[in-house]
Every structure is written in structure tokens, then in C-alpha cells.
């Protein structure tokens, strides 16, 4: 067998090897060497023996040094050679395979992992029979019992007659590679699982027209919505647009995506998509491109999220906000909001329209608010508002506001603070409504009422004359009767002068009484300054009590006086003040007479000092009291069946003309007290 000592170079010309090749069969080369080998130089022939030895050595070295397992089988599959690495790996050499009862091949198969052993046996047997190349991956047991993945190949060597002479096999350790691949697969699987598991719908596409990758959730979505989804071989964006997205939104989505793909910029879009129950739900889709190192877009990714609940909540919120805003704007009042410092931060449309300001311009609002109050009101408003802001008390007042056309209108304004949970004032909310018409109506009413009062005063002169007639008539009736009697006594035989005298005195007394009434009434209407005399008020009270004692005692009522001694004299109109006393005493008596009063029916009259410059007189009854202690002073107010209702009104004007005051209060227990003051320094009231 002639052999050739050669050096060879691989096609890539990166490595050069030298070796020996059989001259008879140059195609026979080292098993596992699949590259074509280009002989480039043939060296001188060596003497055959030497050559053989060298070759033997080199070959043996080579076989043992290649980092793979090399082996050889008989055409029947019996192993005949393992290289050293294989022996080392298995911990067995070929002779070690010889075990009783089993063939060497079976012994080899034993070292294959039980999972692959059967396949290994079948494949190898088939190859041995058919002469096909053997190629397989399997785990092989290392000497230490660890199985490692091997990639194995074997080819038969045939003689010139085509008969298989030997099988040469090679296997190399791919365990690390297998684990790496496994890890990679694992990682991929996890990634996939993750992509499928995240509750979003993910898609990716390379171009607008290209097929789209959808994650499982997206596919499930499709399946639920598109009846013949399985028939769609390659879903595209178009499919999405046609089948899934609300027809109203689809054109916009398409436009957005086209823009996106053209510009290379990501986008966010919202649209409604069909859900399996046939309803549309809102979704948000974010689209981003992935670029390679050069910046070229290689893929587009999209993430679609169901945001329906959120959108609807927002919509509901917006609707509510719109409604509230509408409400705020539509209420026919001016609404406003202030910061705790009093800065206006909000006004409703009604107010803006009234003031003629643009609501959008907050600065304008603040400026306008400084100039909208009537000059006569601005100080009062800022005083009150300032106090309210400081103390937190409710703001409520009437003022005039300038309308956009410069007309001031009366407003009734109120504001309340909104407090934070800690009690601090967070905002002030105010409301003011236009009461201008009302104010004017009230004013007109007041004017009318004044006119009416004057008219009534004039008219009541006639009515008053009836009252006056009664007041004057009583003494007149007495005078007339007395004068007739007097005449009779004098005309009698003999004349009864004593009785005549008495009646004449009574005539004088009653005539004066009538004259007093007349002048009192004249004074009431003229209110002319009257001559005043210095009087002791306690004496005056005593006279009145004496004057009225009869009638009062008849009603079973007692008068109790509690007079402070040594009161200074007061300059007063004797008749008028006496009239006041008479009136008050009569009122008190009548109040008690009308009331069912158990216990003492006593009228208390007291006099006392009221400060340094006045004295006070109180008439206290135990009657029914009054519902309204102020309206009793109005002329013609009466609780009596036969009263004119002038008494207290006249009393008050008399006391006021003396520079004093007259008022009434209901007692705590029962009845009412009328009190009046008279100043020590007489003042001439107009």
C-alpha cells in the first residue's frame, strides 16, 4: 500500500496540516474530515518501512488527539476500535466489552442513556442493513456515570466491489451546547409564556402590509370575535381594521398607523374594538418601532390595553363635571369662589355675563372684582368680608354691583367657608342674587306706605275726631248735666246753694279736663314746643294713682308703687306726662282685667334713677303680655275691643318730645312692662 506524505491546506487557507494519504484510495481520509482537502505539495518518498512507522505513529497520535470519539465497527456492528478519548470517556476499551451473554454492540448500547438506547439500537441496525449514514444525538454514559449529550455520525467504508468493509464512526461531546440550547429554549418559552400571559394584547409587524404576530391573548380575542378566525392564514393589520375595530374608529386608526410607519415615530391611539359579547369596548394601543444598530426600523411592536372601564369612568366623570358646570352656570344667581385670602378664583357664567368678563382670563376676574362694588358700598363690603375671612363667620349683606353696562344693581350676597377636615378654611363659596327689582319694589312700597300713612293721618283726623269726641264728650256730658242740676238747685224753693256750689265746682273741674284733652290733641298734631314746668315725678304718679284708684279698686286690682325718694325734678309737660301715666295705668289694668290671673292682681309703678342724666319710670302689669312689643306703638294698633289704638303711639311721641324713650317688654313670668325715661336736662325735641 503506497502512501503519500503530504501537507494540506483547508479551503479557507487558514490552516495547514500535514499528513499521509493512501495512494491507492486517495478518497479515504480521516474519518470525520469532511472538508475537501487540497494537496498542495508532495514531498519526497520515504523508505516504506520508515514511512510506515512514522505514519503509524502520527496516525495513532492524530486519532488519539482529535477532540472527538472515534470508533470503528465491523459490518455487523461489532466495535473493533475506540480511540483513546473514547476509552477515557467510557472508561472501557473494546476488549472490556466482551462480557458473557451479550454482544459487544449490546455492551456499547448499554452505555447509551436508556431514553435513547432503543432508538440508538434501531437506527444503528437499520444503517448496518441499508448502509445509510448513521447520524444521531444521544446521551452517553461517562466513566463517572454522568450522561453527556453526543452528536454521533458513522459511515461505512466499502471495498471496490461496494461491500461494506468497516464502519467508521465519530462522535463528539455536545452536552454543553445542548444545555445552552435547552436554556435558550427555556428562556424563549418563558418569554413566550410571559408574552402570552400578560393581560395585554401584543402584536408585531414588519410592515403595514406584512403578516402580524399576535400574542395568545390577542389570538383568543380574535377567536372569540371573528367567526372564521382559524381560516385566516396570516392575519394582517387590515384584518384588525376590518374585523375588530369599530367602523367609526377604523379609518382614524389606519391613518394613524400609516403616519406612524411613514414617520418612524411611535404613537398612542384610542379606539373601540369588538368584544366577544358583541359590544364595543375602548382600547388604547401604543406602537413603537424597534431599530437595529444602524437605526433602521426592523420591527413594529404594538401593545393594546382594554381601557374601557377607565374611559367610561372618565366619561361619567366628564359628564358629571359638565352637568355640574352647567348647573353652576345655569343657576340664575351669581356664584363665586374665593381663596381664604379673599382672592376670587371662580365665577359662574351668570356672574361673568353680569360683569361682562371673560371667564378664561383669571387675572381679569381678580381685577374686575376690585371695581365692581358701588363706591358707597365698597368700604362696608370690604370691612364685612375682611372680618368674615378672618373669623370664618358667614358673610351676608346687601350691596350694589356694577353690571357690564355700568348700571349698579342691588345684590344680596352670601358666602360660607368650606373647611378642610382639620378645620382650616379651604375655600369660600359665595352666592349673590339680583334683588334690585325687589329693592326697588320695596322702596316703592315703602314710599307708598309713607304716603298711605300720611293719607291715613289726614283721614284719621276724622276718625280721631270720634275718639276725641269721646274723650271730650265725657267731661262735656258731665258739665251739661251738672249745669242743669246747678240751675235746678238754684231755682228750687228754697234754692239749694250748697248743692249748686258743688255742682258748679264740678263744672269747672270737668271743663278744665275737657280743655286739657283738647290741648293735648292739638299738641299731638302741632307738636309745638310746650311750656314745661319743673315737676316732681313721684307727685305726678301719686296724683294719677289717686285719680284712678276708684275704677281700679272696683276691678279688684291693687296699685303698688315703688318710688325712689329724692328724685330730682324734671322739666315736663304736666298734662302730657299725666296723660301718659293714665294711659299706661289704664292699659295695665285692662290687660290684667282681661286675663285670667291667679294670684295678686297688682300693677307696679316704680321710679328710679337711670344713670346720671335721666330717671326711669316702669309700669309693670301681670296681664297677658304682647305678642309683638314693637307693633303696639303703631297708631291704631289695638288689642282692645273698643280701643282706637292711639294710646301707646301718643305716649311714645309725648315721651320722645321730652327727649326720653318709651319701650315695652314682656315680663319673664307674666304680663308686660312699659318703661320710659325722662332726661333731667330738658331737651326741646322738635
Amino acid at each position, binding site marked *: 500500500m503506497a502512501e503519500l506524505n503530504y501537507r494540506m491546506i483547508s479551503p479557507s487557507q487558514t490552516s495547514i496540516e500535514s499528513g499521509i494519504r493512501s495512494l491507492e484510495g486517495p478518497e479515504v481520509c480521516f474519518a470525520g474530515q469532511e472538508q475537501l482537502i487540497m494537496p498542495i505539495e508532495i514531498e519526497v518518498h520515504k523508505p516504506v518501512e520508515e514511512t510506515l512507522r512514522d505514519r503509524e505513529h502520527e496516525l495513532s497520535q492524530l486519532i488519539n488527539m482529535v477532540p472527538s470519539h472515534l470508533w470503528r465497527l465491523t459490518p455487523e456492528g461489532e466495535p473493533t476500535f475506540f480511540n483513546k478519548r473514547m476509552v477515557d470517556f467510557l472508561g472501557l476499551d473494546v476488549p472490556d466489552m466482551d462480557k458473557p451473554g451479550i454482544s459487544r454492540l449490546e455492551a456499547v448500547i448499554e452505555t447509551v442513556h436508556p431514553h435513547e438506547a432503543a432508538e440508538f439500537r434501531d437506527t444503528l441496525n437499520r444503517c448496518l442493513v441499508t448502509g445509510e449514514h448513521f447520524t444521531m444525538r444521544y446521551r452517553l454514559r461517562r466513566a463517572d456515570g454522568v450522561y453527556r449529550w453526543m452528536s454521533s455520525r458513522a459511515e461505512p467504508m466499502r471495498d471496490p466491489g461496494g461491500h461494506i468493509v468497516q464502519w467508521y464512526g465519530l462522535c463528539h461531546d455536545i452536552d454543553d451546547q445542548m444545555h445552552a440550547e435547552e436554556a435558550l429554549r427555556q428562556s424563549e418559552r418563558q418569554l413566550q409564556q410571559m408574552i402570552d400571559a400578560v393581560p395585554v394584547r401584543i402584536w408585531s409587524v414588519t410592515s403595514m402590509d406584512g403578516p402580524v404576530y399576535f400574542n395568545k391573548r390577542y389570538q383568543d380575542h380574535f377567536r372569540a370575535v371573528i367567526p372564521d378566525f382559524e381560516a385566516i392564514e396570516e392575519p394582517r393589520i387590515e384584518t384588525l381594521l376590518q374585523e375588530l375595530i369599530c367602523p367609526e374608529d377604523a379609518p382614524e386608526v389606519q391613518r394613524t398607523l400609516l403616519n406612524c410607519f411613514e414617520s418612524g415615530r411611535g404613537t398612542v391611539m384610542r379606539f373601540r374594538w369588538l368584544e366577544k359579547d358583541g359590544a364595543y369596548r375602548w382600547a388604547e394601543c401604543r406602537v413603537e418601532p424597534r431599530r437595529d444598530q444602524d437605526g433602521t426600523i426592523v420591527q413594529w411592536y404594538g401593545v393594546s390595553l382594554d381601557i374601557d372601564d377607565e374611559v367610561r369612568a372618565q366619561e361619567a366623570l366628564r359628564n358629571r363635571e359638565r352637568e355640574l358646570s352647567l348647573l353652576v352656570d345655569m343657576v340664575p344667581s351669581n356664584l363665586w369662589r374665593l381663596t381664604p385670602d379673599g382672592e376670587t378664583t371662580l365665577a359662574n357664567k351668570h356672574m361673568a355675563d353680569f360683569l361682562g368678563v371673560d371667564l378664561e382670563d383669571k387675572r381679569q376676574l381678580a381685577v374686575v372684582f376690585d371695581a365692581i362694588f358701588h363706591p358707597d358700598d365698597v368700604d362696608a363690603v370690604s370691612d364685612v368680608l375682611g372680618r368674615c375671612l378672618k373669623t370664618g363667620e358667614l358673610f351676608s349683606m346687601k350691596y350694589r354691583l356694577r353690571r357690564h353696562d355700568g348700571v349698579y344693581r342691588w345684590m344680596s350676597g352670601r358666602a360660607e367657608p368650606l373647611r378642610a377636615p382639620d378645620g382650616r378654611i379651604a375655600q369660600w363659596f359665595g352666592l349673590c342674587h339680583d334683588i334690585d327689582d325687589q329693592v326697588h319694589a320695596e322702596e316703592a312700597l315703602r314710599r307708598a306706605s309713607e304716603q298711605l300713612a300720611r293719607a291715613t293721618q289726614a283721614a284719621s283726623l276724622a276718625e280721631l275726631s270720634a275718639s276725641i269726641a269721646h274723650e271730650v*264728650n265725657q267731661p262735656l256730658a*258731665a258739665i251739661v248735666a*251738672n249745669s*242743669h*242740676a246747678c240751675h*235746678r238747685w238754684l231755682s228750687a224753693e228754697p234754692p239749694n246753694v250748697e248743692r249748686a256750689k258743688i255742682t258748679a265746682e264740678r263744672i269747672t273741674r270737668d271743663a278744665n279736663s275737657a280743655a286739657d284733652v283738647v290741648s293735648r290733641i292739638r299738641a299731638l298734631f302741632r307738636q309745638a314746643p310746650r311750656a314745661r314746668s319743673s315737676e316732681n315725678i313721684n307727685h305726678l304718679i301719686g296724683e294719677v294713682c289717686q285719680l284712678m284708684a276708684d275704677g281700679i279698686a272696683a276691678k279688684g286690682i291693687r296699685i303698688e308703687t315703688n318710688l325712689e325718694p329724692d328724685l330730682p325734678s324734671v322739666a315736663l309737660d304736666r298734662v302730657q306726662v299725666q296723660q301718659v301715666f293714665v294711659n299706661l295705668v289704664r292699659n295695665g289694668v285692662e290687660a290684667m282685667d282681661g286675663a285670667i290671673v291667679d294670684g295678686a292682681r297688682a300693677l307696679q309703678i316704680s321710679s328710679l334713677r337711670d344713670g346720671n342724666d335721666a330717671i326711669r319710670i316702669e309700669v309693670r302689669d301681670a296681664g297677658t303680655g304682647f305678642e309683638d312689643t314693637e307693633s303696639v306703638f303703631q297708631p291704631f294698633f289695638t288689642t282692645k275691643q273698643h280701643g282706637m289704638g292711639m294710646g301707646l303711639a301718643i305716649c311714645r311721641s309725648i315721651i320722645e318730645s321730652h327727649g326720653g324713650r318709651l319701650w315695652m317688654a314682656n315680663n319673664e313670668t307674666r304680663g308686660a312692662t312699659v318703661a320710659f325715661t325722662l332726661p333731667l336736662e330738658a331737651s326741646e325735641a322738635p
Partner: protein
Amino acid sequence: MSQRKEMVFVVDDDARVREAINELLESLGWQSETFAAAADYVAYAKPDLPACLILDVELPDINGLEFQKQLSDDVHPPIVFITGHGDIPSSVRAIQGGAVDFLTKPVGENDLVAAVRAAIDRDRIQRSARAELSELARRLAALTPREREVLPLVVSGLLNKQAAAELGISEITLEIHRSKIMHKMRAESLADLVRIAEKLRIPITHSRRSGSLQECPTRSP
């Protein structure tokens, strides 16, 4: 002027008026008693004399017209109203209620005297009418039951025969009853008896011209 046996009551809440009217009445020779309130007048034990009540319309305890209404059920002296401001409806009401007069203050002497006198005269007449009636009633009470049966028949104008037939007694017997009745009632004639029966409101049960006789056949043959 000597005091008459007549009484004037005055009710007025104004002491001055009360006093003056009292003075005037006394100067005119009347006894007078004054009261400030209607209740006081009611409570007063009044002497049995012809009297008059001068009543102020505006009284503290009751309106004079109301008081008049309350009094109307009992025997009371005729009323003369006096008022500070007389109005027509009140005066009409007062007069319809039986008042003698309705005077406006101040009251003149002549008006007062005339009114008081008229009132007392009316009271006197009423009193004598009341006295006569009670005397007649006393006489009627003295009749026997049979005589009380005969009386209506006689005053109805039935003949003795008719009346006897009506009662089923003899004409003679009836004549005896009739004569006793005339005596007991102190009637001087049949006409007198008829007048007395009228005052006593004895009903006329039979008329001579009525068909009652035909309906009541005579029992005498």
C-alpha cells in the same frame, strides 16, 4: 221739690258723668242709684218702685245693647240709653229691643226728663198691668174645676142651653155655675168677663157660628 216714689238707676263707667247725672236727677226730685258696671246693677237689690234704667252703651264689662238683650227675659224697668257717639244702627237696635229712648251725650235736661218720665210711666203701666193680671189669676184659681170648664164655653158666646148640652148638664145647673163665676171673677157683665178671660188668655174653644154644634149632637131630648 219733694222726692217722688220713683227710682232711677244709672249705669255709666265714667265717674264724672255718673256723678253729674245723679246730681241732675236728684235736683229734679228723683231718687237715683248709680253703678260703674252692669254687674253691679244686677247685684243691687232694687226697691219695688216704678223705675227707669239709664244705661251707657259703652260699658267696661258689657256692651249696653248686649245687656239689654240679657235683661229682656226678666222683668226690668224700661231702659233709656245714653251714648258718647250714637249711631243709627245702635239706636234702632235699642228701640227695637224695647228701649224708651236713645240719647246722645251730652244729654239736655229736657230730653232726659222726658225720657225718664216716659220710662217711669211705662213702668208704672206695666207694673199695674202685672198687678191686675196677678189679681185676676188669683180669682181664676178660686174657681172650681167645673166652673173652669164652664168659663171658656160662656166667654165663647155659647147660649146657656148650648153650653149645658156641651157639658151634659142641665141648663139650670149651668146658670148657677155661670152666676158663681161672675161673682168670683168680679165681672160686672158678660163683656167684662170676656175681657178678663182675654187678659188671662183663656182660649175661646167654641164658636156659636162654627159647625161644632152640629158635630156634637145634643144629649137632651
